[in-house]
C-alpha cells in the first residue's frame, strides 16, 4: 500500500536576522560592511519517516525541537532545504485553529472563509456546514458576528471545522481539548472514533493523548528523530528527557 505521507531526508534551516536587520537601511549597511545580517539556524537535520493510511501518529518533543517546522513542511507552508515530502491524497492542515477568522464576519461567513483557505470548494463546505455547526453546538449563533461570541464559542467553532473537515490526512498542532468538560468529552469520543479510518498527524505535549489516541509516536529532539514506535515507550522516553 502507498504511504499517506513519506518524508525522506528532510533538512530545514532558517536565516534568523541579527539584531534589527529588518529594514532597508540596515540591509544596505550590512551589505556595505560585508556583514551577513543573519545567523543560520538548523532546525531539522535529516528527518525521514512514513505514515500509512489510517494511522494515527503523534509527534512529540520539547519546545524548539522542530515539531512545528516539520508540520509546516508537511503542509507545504515551508519549502525544505533538501529532502522530500510526498503526500498521497488531500491534506488538511491545522497549524492553528480558525485561520483567517475575522471578528467582523458572522459565524457562517467565517466557516466558509476558513474552508476556502483550507482548499475546500463552496459545495464541499455546504456538505460539511450543518455537521460543523451541530458539532460546535452553535446553531443559534451562525448569523451573529464572531466578535459577539464568547472565546469558548469561538474555539468550539474553529475546532469543529478542524475535525469535521473532510480530507484524507488531518494535521493538528496542539489543538486538542478545547471548551468545557462536556465538549472535551465529545472531542475525545470523536478522536477515538477516528481510529483506523482517518490518517492523523498530531503534535502535542500531552502524553495522555499520545497514549490514548496514537498508534505510533515519533520523538524529535534537536531536529532529529530520537525514538519512534509504540506510543507508551516513546512517551516514556519523552518524559525522561528532563532526567
Amino acid at each position, binding site marked *: 500500500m502507498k504511504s499517506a505521507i513519506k518524508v525522506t531526508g528532510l533538512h530545514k534551516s532558517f536565516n534568523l536576522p541579527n539584531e534589527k536587520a*529588518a529594514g*532597508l537601511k540596515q*540591509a544596505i549597511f550590512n551589505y556595505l560592511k560585508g556583514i551577513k545580517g543573519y545567523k543560520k539556524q538548523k532546525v531539522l537535520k535529516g528527518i525521514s519517516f512514513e505514515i500509512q493510511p489510517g494511522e494515527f501518529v503523534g509527534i512529540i518533543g520539547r519546545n524548539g525541537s522542530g515539531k512545528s517546522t516539520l508540520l509546516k513542511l508537511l503542509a507545504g507552508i515551508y519549502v525544505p532545504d533538501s529532502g522530500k*515530502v510526498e503526500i498521497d491524497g488531500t491534506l488538511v*492542515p491545522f*497549524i492553528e485553529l480558525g485561520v*483567517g477568522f475575522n471578528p467582523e464576519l458572522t459565524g457562517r461567513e467565517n466557516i466558509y*472563509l476558513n474552508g476556502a*483557505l483550507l482548499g475546500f*470548494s463552496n459545495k464541499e463546505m455546504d456538505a460539511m456546514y450543518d455537521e460543523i455547526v451541530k458539532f460546535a453546538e452553535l446553531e443559534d449563533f451562525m448569523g451573529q458576528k464572531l466578535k459577539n461570541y464568547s472565546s469558548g464559542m469561538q474555539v468550539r467553532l474553529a475546532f469543529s471545522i478542524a475535525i469535521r473537515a473532510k480530507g484524507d490526512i488531518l494535521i493538528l498542532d496542539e489543538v486538542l481539548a478545547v471548551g468545557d468538560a462536556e465538549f472535551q468529552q465529545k472531542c475525545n469520543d470523536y478522536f477515538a472514533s477516528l481510529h483506523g479510518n482517518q490518517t492523523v498527524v498530531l503534535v502535542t505535549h500531552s502524553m495522555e493523548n499520545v497514549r490514548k489516541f496514537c498508534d505510533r509516536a515519533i520523538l524529535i529532539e534537536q531536529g532529529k528523530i530520537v525514538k519512534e514506535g509504540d506510543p507508551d515507550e516513546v512517551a516514556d522516553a519523552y518524559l525522561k528527557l528532563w532526567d
Partner: protein
Amino acid sequence: MVKIPRVWDRKNMILLKELTKTDFKLRYQGSVLGYLWAILRPLLMFAILYVVFSQILKFGDDIPHYPVYLLTGTVLWSFFSECTGQGIQAMVMRGDLIRKVSFPKYIVVVSSTLTAVINLCINILVVVIFALISGVSPSLSWLIVPMFIVELYALSLGISFLLGAINVKYRDVASIWEVLTQALFYTAPIIYPISMAAAMSPTAAKILLLNPISQVIQDVRYNLITKETVTTWNYIDNIWWKAVPIIIIVVLLVVGALYFRKKSKYFAEEV
C-alpha cells in the same frame, strides 16, 4: 510532492472570491455612509482639484468639458494609487494566513486589488453620467475604454507583485512607494492639461506622455470625452517611442510576476 495547483484552479478562484468578499465587506464596516465612501472619495478629491485648478488657477479653459476631463483623471489616478497601495501591502497584511496555510500567494495580492477594481467600475459609471450631463455625446469609441482600464490594472498588478514581494522583507518599500506616488501624481496630466506642458516645451510633454499612467488617462479622455485630447499615440511620431508605455507595463508585469513567484516560496518564513 504537495500538489501545485494550476493558476486558474477552481479552488483558487473560490478562495479569491472569499477573500475579496471579506475585504470588501470589512473595508467600510462601521461607517455611516458605508460603501458610498468608495464613490465619495474621488468625487471629493475632484471637487477640491476643480475649485483650485479650474476655478482659481483657470487651468483647462481651452479644453471642452474640462470638469469631466479632470474627473476622469482623478478617478483613474485614485484607482492606480489604491490598487498599488493595497497590493504592495497585501502580503504583510495577510501574514497571519501565509504563516498558517499553504495556498498560492498571488491570490492575496489579486484579492486586495479587486476592491479597487470594483470601486473603479462604479466610479467610471459616475464619470459616464457626469459626461452625459455635461453634454458629451455617446460614441462607439466608449466601448474601447475598458481596454485601457485593463492596461492600467496590468500596470498596477505588475508594481504590486514586484514591490509587494520586496516589501515582505524590507517594509520600507511600502513607505517609499507612498511618497513616490505623491511625486508620480504630478508626472501625469491629471490636474494640468498636457497642452500646458506642451506650450512650455514639446519635448517635456512628450516625455510626460511616455509615462504609462499618462498614456492611459489621455487615451481614456480621448475616447470618452473629446477627440481633441493629446495622446501618446497622436503626439509622438516615432512608432517605437509610441510603444514605450506598453513596453514598460509588459516588462513590469512579467518581471513582477516572475520575481513574486520565485520569492513566494519563502514568504511564510519571512513575513
